[in-house]
C-alpha cells in the first residue's frame, strides 16, 4: 500500500462523522426531526462530487495544454467517482424527500417531480453520463482524449445553470430555495447551526478523501493497463 497520511485521515474523519453524526446534539426542528442528520451524508455527497468534478476539470485542461495521456486518465477517473457520488447523493435525496416532503408536508408526487432542484441535478448527472458514452464511442485513443477533454469542460460549465443558478431562481421544496427561508438551494453557510458545522465540515473532507482514494486506485489500475501505450 502506498502510505499516505490522508488515507488514514479519511478513515478517522469518517469514523468521527458516524460517531459524532449519530450522537452529538442537533437542532430540534419540526418535519425534519431526527432526519436532519442526513446533512452529514446526503449533502456531503454533493460537496465531494463538486470537488472531484473540479479536479477532473483541471486535469482535462492540463491534458489540452500538454496532450499527456496520463492527464486524460486522471480526468476520466475523477469524473467517474464524482458521478458515482452524485448518484449516491441523488439516491439518498429521494429517500429523504420521501419522508420529509411527501409524508410530512403532504406533497403530491407530481409536485415533487416538478422540483427544479431534482430536474437540474438529473440533467447535470446525465450530462456527465454522456461524457462516458462519448469516451466509449471512440476507437482512436488520441481523438477520444481530446474530444472528451473538451466535452468535460462543457459538462462542468453546465453544472452552473443546472444545479447552482436555476434552482436559486425558482421556488422549491428543497431547503434554501426562494420558497423556503434561506436563499441557497443546497446549503446556506449562515443558516447551518454551529452544532452541525463541527461534524459537517469534517464529513465533507472525509468523504472527499475517500472518493480521491478510490479514484487513485482506479487511475493506477488504468495506468498499469496502458503502461505499454504510454511508454511507446
Amino acid at each position, binding site marked *: *500500500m*502506498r502510505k499516505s497520511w490522508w*488515507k488514514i485521515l479519511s*478513515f478517522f474523519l*469518517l*469514523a468521527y462523522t*458516524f*460517531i459524532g453524526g*449519530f*450522537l452529538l446534539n442537533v437542532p*430540534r*426542528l*419540526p418535519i425534519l*426531526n*431526527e432526519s436532519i442528520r442526513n446533512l452529514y451524508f446526503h449533502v456531503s455527497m454533493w460537496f465531494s462530487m463538486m470537488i472531484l468534478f473540479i479536479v477532473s476539470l483541471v486535469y482535462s485542461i492540463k491534458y489540452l495544454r500538454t496532450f499527456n495521456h496520463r492527464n486524460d486518465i486522471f480526468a476520466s477517473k475523477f469524473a467517474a467517482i464524482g458521478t458515482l457520488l452524485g448518484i449516491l447523493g441523488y439516491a439518498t435525496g429521494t429517500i429523504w424527500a420521501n419522508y420529509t416532503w411527501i409524508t410530512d408536508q403532504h406533497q403530491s408526487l407530481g409536485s415533487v417531480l416538478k422540483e427544479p432542484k431534482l430536474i437540474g441535478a438529473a440533467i447535470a448527472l446525465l450530462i456527465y453520463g454522456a461524457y462516458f458514452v462519448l469516451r466509449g464511442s471512440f476507437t482512436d485513443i488520441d481523438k477520444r482524449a481530446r474530444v472528451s477533454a473538451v466535452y468535460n469542460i462543457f459538462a462542468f460549465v453546465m453544472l452552473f445553470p443546472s444545479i447552482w443558478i436555476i434552482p436559486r431562481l425558482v421556488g422549491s421544496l428543497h431547503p434554501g430555495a426562494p420558497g423556503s427561508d434561506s436563499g441557497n438551494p443546497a446549503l446556506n453557510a449562515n443558516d447551518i447551526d454551529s452544532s452541525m458545522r463541527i461534524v459537517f465540515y469534517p464529513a465533507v473532507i472525509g468523504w472527499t478523501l475517500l472518493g480521491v*482514494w*478510490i479514484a487513485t*486506485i482506479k487511475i*493506477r*489500475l488504468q495506468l*498499469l493497463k496502458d*503502461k505499454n501505450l504510454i511508454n511507446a
Partner: protein
Amino acid sequence: MPNFFLRSVCTIIFLITSLCSFAQQKVEMADTMRSNGKIYVVVAVSITILTGLFIYLIFLDKKISRFEKNKE
C-alpha cells in the same frame, strides 16, 4: 361596556393559551433510542461497515502496489 371588557379578556386569554401551546409544541426526536442506549448499536454497526470498507480498500491498494513493482 361589560361586553367589550369580556371580549378583550377572552381575546387575551386565548392569545396567551395559543402562544403557550405554540411554545410547547414538541418536536419528536429519537429520545427513547438515546436514553436506553440503543443508538450505540447503530453507531457500532455503521463503524463496522466503514472499517470493513477501508480494510478492503487497503487490500486493493496493496495489491495494485505489488503489480506496479512487478512491472518495473
